[in-house]
């Protein structure tokens, strides 16, 4: 945790040291936080999908805690991605939002995880399996959303831009990716542990009631 905090504390200097991009100027520096959080958003979605699979088909009840943790992180990083994206787009494309494949599929994935949280909160008993089903379907749905919106229209700079960046931009970028990954792993583990313990406390209460 301390390491992640330290890395984030240093990040502004790293980003500050990176050279200006010729056409976009200062604004492109949002990218150093935008791309890593987008990656973590996708990672969270994949973790949630895999954990759902384990819960539903391999009958691992503890996997549910990982689904919850990952889904919450997907909403957090998704929100971060969707806020930083338009800030950059306003400057680079002149509009806040375009109906592009990546943007729209990110938004839809984000909405699926918001639906998951709503379901967990208001669904009542049995919503854990339901949520796992939703997360699993959500993961299977990503390629479909992507292909359909891709054919519909596309603007977003492709990911292939990353290896072509000059070294002075690449180092802070990868540094931020590492910092975000570390933060993601820590939050995921903490949240899953909290859920494990909550389940244990509940089990203890039930045992107490029966005794």
């Amino acid at each position, binding site marked *: 945790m301390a390491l992640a905090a330290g890395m984030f504390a240093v990040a502004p200097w790293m980003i500050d040291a990176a050279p200006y991009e010729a056409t976009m100027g200062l604004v492109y520096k949002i990218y150093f936080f935008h791309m890593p959080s987008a990656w973590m958003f996708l990672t969270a979605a994949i973790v949630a999908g895999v954990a759902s699979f384990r819960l*539903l*088909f391999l*009958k691992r009840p503890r996997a549910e805690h990982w689904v919850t943790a990952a889904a919450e992180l997907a909403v957090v990083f998704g929100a971060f991605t969707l806020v930083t994206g338009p800030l950059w787009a306003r400057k680079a494309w002149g509009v806040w939002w375009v109906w592009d494949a990546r943007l*729209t599929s990110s938004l*839809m994935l984000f*909405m*699926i995880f918001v*639906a998951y949280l*709503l*379901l967990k909160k*208001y*669904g*009542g*008993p*049995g*919503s854990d*399996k*339901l949520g*796992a*089903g*939703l997360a*699993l*379907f*959500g993961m*299977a*749905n990503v390629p*479909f*959303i992507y*292909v*359909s*919106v891709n*054919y*519909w229209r596309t603007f977003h700079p492709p990911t292939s831009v990353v290896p072509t960046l000059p070294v002075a931009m690449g180092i802070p970028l990868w540094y931020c990716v590492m910092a975000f990954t570390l933060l993601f792993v820590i939050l995921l583990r903490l949240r899953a542990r909290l859920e494990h313990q909550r389940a244990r406390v509940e089990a203890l209460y039930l045992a107490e009631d029966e005794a």
Partner: protein
Amino acid sequence: MNAFARIVWFVVKKDLTVEVRSLEILSTTMFFAVTVVLMFSFGLVVDGRPLNDVAAAILWVAIAFSGTLALGRTFERERHNDTLRALLLAPADRPALYVGKLLGILLLLGLVELVLVPLIGLLFNAPVIQQAVPLLLLVGAGTLGFAAVGTLFAAMLVRARSRDVLLPIMLYPMTVPVMIAGVRGTAALFQPTPDAAVAQFWLSLLAAFDVVFVILALWTFEPVMTD
């Protein structure tokens, strides 16, 4: 007829019998679909002329809305009489129950679309008769995809609280590909010179969606419906 097909047939027959005697879901859903078309027409027809591609969009929005309503009502009926528990207790394959429910929903939505599509043709001067075959395929594939996901979610939600609002919340983001493919494919058909190649592309996307999600639903139905 093997055991699987027999159970599917029993479930479909049961749903049909209940529906034929009351006509509750069919009549309300159909009227609702017509209302949705009119609502959107008032919003999107400017100076007596519809905006571009509006007919296709209204058709699919109406299908999605009335589909949600039909799904909700069908499973509400099962919940109200606690018959879903009886169904699940029956010595039957869970996937067969799912397929039976799915076919019932498809039949219902098919009947609604039988009114909806000509209505769109009438109101928006769309070539529904000239393009009948590709349109039938598109609407059929889209409805199957929508209903395949919807039947699973509605069945899962039977025991959940606030299920009325949770169904569309879960279903709409999940069926975005169906909406995009359906609307774009239909819009291609409704152009003055229909674009068969584009419609073909969207139809194949819908078919792929159907295959993946029907299989996934058959696969998930068993674990999510077991306590």
